[in-house]
């Protein structure tokens, strides 16, 4: 191999990488919160809602899970303005990621809800709790504890998938990489370093989610 790698050519651009990294992290946090909330609604609708709502939510889930994220993103960013809904890059990115995670987490959370024994719901009901109270205090807490690992994996997948938002010029980590390589012509070095940053981010995200899980679900190992 005759080519010599020149990582030093990246140094002048460290602030751009940092900015992109922060953007990607923020994007992930916001869409994780919103996407999980959407998934909770979706799962509740599918489990406890009327039949038409179950069907409708099911269709949403299938459409999202069976189309590429980049197409969803393009549809939201390029397609929706044609229908009169105009969004800037960041909003479109957040919306696409939220809608995407919302679909996956709907199914994940639904599986958790279905794993809650019927007797627990009856116990809640016979304590005079309303359906909503049973859902919140008995069902969802248990369900979340059960599916937390699966949800965490999905959050990491969505974080990695967010690299695509650079394609609509949302200024994330990949956008920074694209910009830098267009300036210093060290594409391989730039993408290698940025891939390393994503790997680090994936590891840190997993660890952080584990930590949060331990704080929230402080029960004994079951």
């Amino acid at each position, binding site marked *: 191999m005759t080519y010599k790698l020149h990582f030093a050519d990246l140094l002048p651009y460290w602030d751009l990488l940092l900015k992109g990294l922060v953007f990607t992290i923020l994007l992930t946090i916001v869409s994780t919160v919103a996407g999980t909330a959407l998934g909770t609604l979706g799962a509740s609708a599918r489990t406890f809602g009327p039949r038409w709502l179950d069907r409708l939510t099911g269709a949403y889930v299938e459409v999202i899970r069976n189309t590429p994220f980049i197409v969803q993103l393009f549809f939201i960013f390029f397609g929706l303005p044609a229908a009169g809904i105009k969004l800037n890059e960041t909003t479109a990115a957040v919306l696409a990621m939220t809608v995407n995670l919302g679909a996956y987490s709907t199914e994940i959370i639904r599986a958790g809800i279905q794993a809650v024994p019927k007797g627990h719901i*009856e*116990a809640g*009901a*016979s304590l005079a709790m309303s359906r909503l109270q049973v859902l919140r*205090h008995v069902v969802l807490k248990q369900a979340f504890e059960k599916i937390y690992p699966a949800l965490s994996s999905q959050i990491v997948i969505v974080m990695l998938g967010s690299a695509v938002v650079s394609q609509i010029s949302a200024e994330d980590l990949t956008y920074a990489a694209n910009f830098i390589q267009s300036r210093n012509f060290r594409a391989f070095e730039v993408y290698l370093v940025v891939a390393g940053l994503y790997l680090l981010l994936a590891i840190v995200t997993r660890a952080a989610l584990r930590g949060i899980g331990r704080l929230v*679900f402080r029960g004994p190992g*079951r």
Partner: protein
Amino acid sequence: MSLVSIQNVRKSFGEVEVLKGVSVEIARGAVVAIIGKSGSGKSTLLRCINGLETYDAGGISVDGIDVAAARADLRDLRRNVGMVFQQFNLFPHLTAAENVMLAPRVVNRESEIRAKELAREMLAKVGLADKAGNYPSQLSGGQQQRVAIARALAMRPNVLLCDEITSALDPELVNEVLRVIEALAKDGMTLILVTHEMRFARDVGTKLVFMHQGKVHEEGPPKQLFAGPTTPELVQFIGASLH
């Protein structure tokens, strides 16, 4: 006047009629033991009283509240009717104390402090004051069932429904649960128990209801029925259960 009045209740699951016109009157402070073979409809009857099951015909009222009329919102009814299940159904993500505190907090909107006091009091009542911080998975079956009783009592119900509450327990753990129920009976709590514990039904019960094929086949004071059952089915049932 009866606290719980069950009049000519009928209930079918699909083609199978499990309750074929059941009537029972239960006075305040009574300890009613419902016995009978599995499939005789006794658990279904119990679950109709707090609206976990609907019934097709007849009527049930608790403390003057008509169960069928309360269908839209059963919460007022259920505040007055506690229930303990065969499988405990403790909430696994909450400690013993939190299990007891949950309904007082979210249903009755009691303060954290008041709910904690209540939990302490109720757990003490079932002899588990020292297990307040334990999770269900860290308790024995008998202890879990006593927590479940404390949880139901924390809502200060007028009547407590017990659905085969010792059937899932190892034999050596049955007595600790029965002693708690006995103490409740002595305190004057109205109890309706579906049970297989014949000795307990005889010694603690004030009324025995023998169900057979979806009907009340025989009822009366336990000691009297055990000493002289009048129907051959009850003779056979008592004979089979005591051996």
